[in-house]
């Protein structure tokens, strides 16, 4: 019997099956990543602390404060708006449901890793938030805009960010990133050439 084939958000909208989208404009790279399971955790009334404890016990990290991310590479908890965190990586432990509304969002978001030296400058074309390295450090996150799109932006390294937009908007995300990347890249080249 045939089986249903999973596609990345970009593969889905292009009808292709060429693997995760990768767009490079020297020196920047934007690549679609599979972060594992995405689960929104919305603690019930007065349950934030208990949820944090359960999360710590099950996945090794507490509930993040606003604009912060907790956890390690394999399992992270991302602040995701008012009274909400996004568990990234593992399938949620059953114990969490006692304290929070637990909702599968694994297919709802398009996740893109953007990297390159001084990549803040690319995002400065699209994101109205101060993302400079000494202000927006590794593990800092914001629910904000990328162009006209509602997004989640997280710094994952000195020169890398994770950007999440609605799955259906992945094409627009890559288009916006491309526009910003070629602009910054051309400026670098012009400055280099004197």
């Amino acid at each position, binding site marked *: 019997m045939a089986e249903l084939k999973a*596609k990345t958000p970009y593969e889905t909208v292009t009808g292709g099956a060429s693997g995760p989208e990768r767009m490079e404009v020297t020196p920047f790279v934007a690549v679609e990543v599979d972060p594992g399971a995405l689960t929104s955790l919305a603690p019930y009334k007065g349950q934030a602390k208990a949820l944090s404890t359960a999360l710590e016990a099950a996945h090794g990290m507490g509930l993040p404060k606003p604009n912060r991310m907790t956890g390690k590479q394999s399992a992270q908890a991302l602040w995701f708006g008012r009274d909400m965190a996004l568990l990234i990586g593992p399938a949620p432990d059953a114990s969490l449901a006692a304290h929070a509304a637990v909702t599968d969002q694994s297919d*709802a978001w398009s996740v893109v890793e953007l990297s390159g030296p001084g990549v803040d400058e690319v995002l400065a074309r699209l994101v109205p*938030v101060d993302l400079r390295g000494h202000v927006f450090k590794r593990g800092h996150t914001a629910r904000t805009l990328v162009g006209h799109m509602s997004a989640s932006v997280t710094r994952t390294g000195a020169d890398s960010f994770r950007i999440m937009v609605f799955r259906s908007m992945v094409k627009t995300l890559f288009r916006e990133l491309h526009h910003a990347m*070629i602009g910054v*890249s051309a400026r670098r080249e012009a400055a280099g050439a004197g």
Partner: protein
Amino acid sequence: MRIPGKGLIDETQVSFRFDGHAYEGRAGDTLASALLANDVRLMARSFKYHRPRGPLTAGSEEPNALVTVGEGARRDPNVRATVQEVYDGLVARSQNAFPSTSFDVMAVNDLLSPFLSAGFYYKTFMWPRAFWEKLYEPVIRRAAGLGALSGEPDPDQYEKAFAFCDLLVIGAGPTGLMAALTAARGGADVILCDEDNRMGGRLLAENEEIGGMPGHVWAEEVLDELRDMENVRLMTRTTVTGAYDQGTYGALERVRHHRPRGPLPKSCFWRIVAKRAVLAAGALERPVAFRNNDRPGVMTAGATRAYLNRWGVAAGKSVVVFGNTDDTHRTARDLIAAGVHVPVVVDNRHDAEPQGDYRVIAGGHVVNSSGRRGVEAVEVAHANGRRESFACESLAMSGGWNPSVHLACHMNGRPVWNDAIQAFVPKPGMIPGMTAAGAANGTFSTHGCLEDGQQAALDALSDLGRKAEADTLPPAGDAPYRIRPLWAVPGRGRAWLDFQNDVTVKDVKLAAQENFRSVEHMKRYTTQGMATDQGKNSNVAALAVLADATGRAIEETGTTTFRPPYTPVPIAAMGAGGGGIGFAPQRFTTSDAAARQSGAPMIEAGLWYRPSYFPKPGETTWRQSCDREVRMVRDAVGICDVSTLGKIDIQGPDAGAFLDFVYTNMFSTLKVGRTRYGLMLREDGHVMDDGTTARLGAHHYLMTTTTAAAGNVMKHLDFVSQALRPDLDVRFTSVTEQWAQFAVAGPKSRELLQGLLDAFTPEDWPFMACGDISVMGVKGRLFRISFSGEHAYEIAVPSRYGDSLYRELIARAETLGGGAYGMEALNVMRIEKGFITHAEIHGRTTAFDIGMERMVSDKKDCIGKTMSERPGLMDPMREQLVGLKPVGAVKQLTAGAHLYNAGEEPVRENDQGYITSNCYSPTLDTVLALGFLKNGRARHGEKIRMVDSLRGLDALCEVCDPVFLDPKGEKMRG
């Protein structure tokens, strides 16, 4: 004329074209300096009288020398020649002249000038009224004007960007450099913006020493230090154009106006958010109004010195200097040192003495200029009235300096008059967080500027909680600014105030005489200050003349309002990235690629794209495809992507109570595994949205909304939860994007699913059932709901499988004689069933109007319930939802058409209702419509007249129940 050995620019030659002629300039030249070096000073024609004009200034305030740069779709009109840098291959041409700047037939306007005074258009073209739009305005617009856009789409790239800093320093003259240096050394994050291509401000234009070295060398040393600091960002060619709330400043960066085409964006519009700002924008020199002061060759003295000292260009072989401050003598000294002949210096101050080897006429005025296409001589009046003429090629004039207060006034603050410098200066605190310093604050000596800049930075550092100490300032000139007011030289003839809009002293006096005495009225009556320079050169002089004419003091007369932007900003830069499809994000469903592959035209539904219909070979119109798709669903099975409907996951112990409060009907009583149709009201009692909500668990519901209202409903739920019912423990999350959902509709839907689902027993899925299923090994959800009136299901899987499942569904449907159907067929089928959409619940209808008042439960309260019971909202004479079928000769019914009683005149007073939706029903072989009719439910069977005044239709139709097909719902329940 280039003076060998003068200037700060290098010798690299560049070739450019102006008005079809090839010229050589030097790298670092502006178009204006390069043309002057080539002895070209006629660069434009004036706006109204088409008078020949040359550059008046050397900066962005230039009113005269506007040119068009580039060709074809890339052309850029109204570029100031004083700002445009020359580069190899630059092509520019003059504007507002036909056939050429040197011979312009429209200059006939100048001869008509006695008739074209202030208010001329208002007085003359009043009558006949129709002539204004058809004749006068087009003719006037063609004759008066600036450069034009190409009319083609702009192919260039533009950018928008955000920047953040502790301190924004606006302007990189001595004040700005000192402020930036002090703040940067104090550890603050600094952005220093300057609109010039080279930082230094007036230090590049003057012979001025700082710390024992030429000012421009000092500037370069400071800039070298700033360039090496990580906490400093230098932005050249960047004009801060506006000051906005919360420390936000708009700025336009000219990224690629100074080089040939390439991958660079043309310009970038910045939004800079700064904790503190220093306005160090300097000052602008005022021209003096005297007869024929607009002749090419007449320019401000500051511009004369800038061309000489920075670009090594003399405005002429002999230059007369005219002014009212010591700058007059500085100009004469610089010119003489460069070997330029200065026939005379005219200083309106009676105690003026020569400061070098030149003749001074103290207490004198220049009263007229003469010459063809440029100044050849000026006439001077001595203090005793005696007249004397001097031959010259240029006149350098100065009426003093106006601090650049513009940005300080962008939040509606008014500057204050300072009598000592005869100018307006900013008041402290006009823009929260911004301090004006240096010349922008009325401090005109170099030493004073350095001191001011340092102090402003120290204050900012202290505000930012940083400790800093004042370094010793380098010694610099500190001469006092001695000024005697000089606005307009009395006399006959036309003396220009606003060069760009051709407004003269006489015009302003006429405005006052005709009782346009307020400065705002004068501005609008004369158009003074309304051109692209926004009165930078003329505002203060014009209101000084107005003050004089109305017998008031200048401070009493006041200024007009300063608004952003400081210099013109192309819309293309503000809207960068927003052209074409960049206008809004595009949302694509998981079946989008498959739908496009089968040739479906897509239509927009909010940000989503949905297939309109799926044409088959031989079908030439949308109706053929649509009719086939309807029959296909009614007879076999059809597949439609319904993922765009909003899906909201609702969980919590109080989820049921919460839904009872937002929906008119009960949801707490819904059984797990069942789905119910719900109606939602706004607080004002009108219908907000509808949809089905499924109960997935004891504390777990899944709400669906219409595609259009998904965002609004989510926002509404958030509001209700936070503001109205914070007592309820409930949480919601949008899962619209998580699930790909497809309608499988038609008598063969059951058969299709039987082959597809892992273990499917149709008997376990009665109408309105819902629950988990497994589709080819993937966990999904199934809902037995129908929007077509057929036996139907909606099947949902995680979106990553959407494309795959959709293709599988289509393949299976096709083996059963079915296939895909689009929005057109979906709409036809819901009209046949009388199901409403936002065409009916358009914001002005109530549950009563759509025949659903019984859905407003009387067992509980809900949002909008009380308000929906207001008198009048249940009035039988309200327009109620009805069905309509044509019964006369005209078989067409149209949405938007109005209804009238047969025999009554179709006018507003007789209006009985209107049509909201219409279609051709292939099932019933007739046109159908839904609409609203006064007391409609009681009028089934009645004949009514439809009139569509827009499309010229007049049809007779019969009123009926809005459910045309299977009124008992046997097909969808069965």
